[in-house]
């Protein structure tokens, strides 16, 4: 099956890629949007003093 990879997707905040699979007649059989990144804020802010949390989670997205 023919495949079109868009890697990376651009002009937005964050990382992403799109895989498009084409059927024999050229129509789109399926497409997958993938987010290839994780940093784990959900874990590493656990137990942190509450006044420090905004100073850390503001680095989830700086855009």
């Amino acid at each position, binding site marked *: 099956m023919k495949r079109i990879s868009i890697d990376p997707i651009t002009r937005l905040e964050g990382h992403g890629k799109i895989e498009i699979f084409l059927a024999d007649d050229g129509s789109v059989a399926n497409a997958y949007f993938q987010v290839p990144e994780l940093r*784990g804020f959900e874990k590493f802010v656990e137990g942190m003093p509450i006044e420090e949390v905004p100073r850390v989670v503001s680095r989830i997205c700086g855009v």
Partner: protein
Amino acid sequence: MAKLKLASYWAAACGGCDVAILDVHEKILDIAAAADIVFWPIATDFKYRDVEAMPDANIDVTLFHGAVRNSENEHLAHLLREKSKVLVAFGSCAHIGGIPGLANLFTREEIFKRVYGESPSTVNPEKVEPQAKVTMPEGEITIPEFYDTVKSLNQVVEVDYYVPGCPPTPKQIWNVVQAIVNGQLPAKGTVIGASEKTQCDECQRKKQEKKITGFKRIATAQPDPDTCFLEQGFLCMGPVTRGGCDTRCQLSGVPCRGCYGPPPGVLDQGAKALSAIASVIEAKEEADVQRIIDEIPDPLRSFNRFGIPASLIKRKVL
């Protein structure tokens, strides 16, 4: 003279470094006049294959932001090293690991369990976790391998210069751009876009002799706006942090958390913080020492907020 070729890339990053570059405002036009952007995912539509197709050393300068957290970050670090004459670790994450480096206090399994299982907003009864390769009916699709350990850029490839800060200030970015454009970069391996002093040397708050008899938190006590945070008992990383940011946090009413990394001559910022705090604690009895130490809020993540990967401990023992 041919125009310079510039690239800017984010690995495990938040995009704040890219926005800080844009925060030079109208001077971005001067950058555009002096240099062609050949790769910059936040702002231009070049793909990884475009970079792969370049001859080696084709890019004059790459500003690399973000930590190395997964196999894609590592691949891009090697690729951009190969394609760049000068590779700059730009911002705290590339410089010393940054906020993503806090994940080194946990294992990959602990992070996955929390993110994809336990977090209150997650519904995942089948307990699906990310897989580097998945076979779908149409074919195989892949995502990068999530590493156990976050690394700074120089733990993966050779780095020519370091620009500290989370993010670097636009004023310092402009200084760095001018040095690049005018061919005035110093010796390789240098920290640029910062000062050679500490935050305390540049902080305008009134300082006397430091004698700490207890620690306070800004959540529960009001700091005096004109006096040194540390003297008031609020933990501040100023004594062990490189200057150059114009003490923007202290001027905003919050203590320094160390994003500009260790000052010249200091190997481990967190260890130096421990040593600096120990030397100003004022206590006569051992019990008082213990009480004061116990009052330090979250010491591990406060002393090493931005630099766990570059510290001597590097990560939690696996």
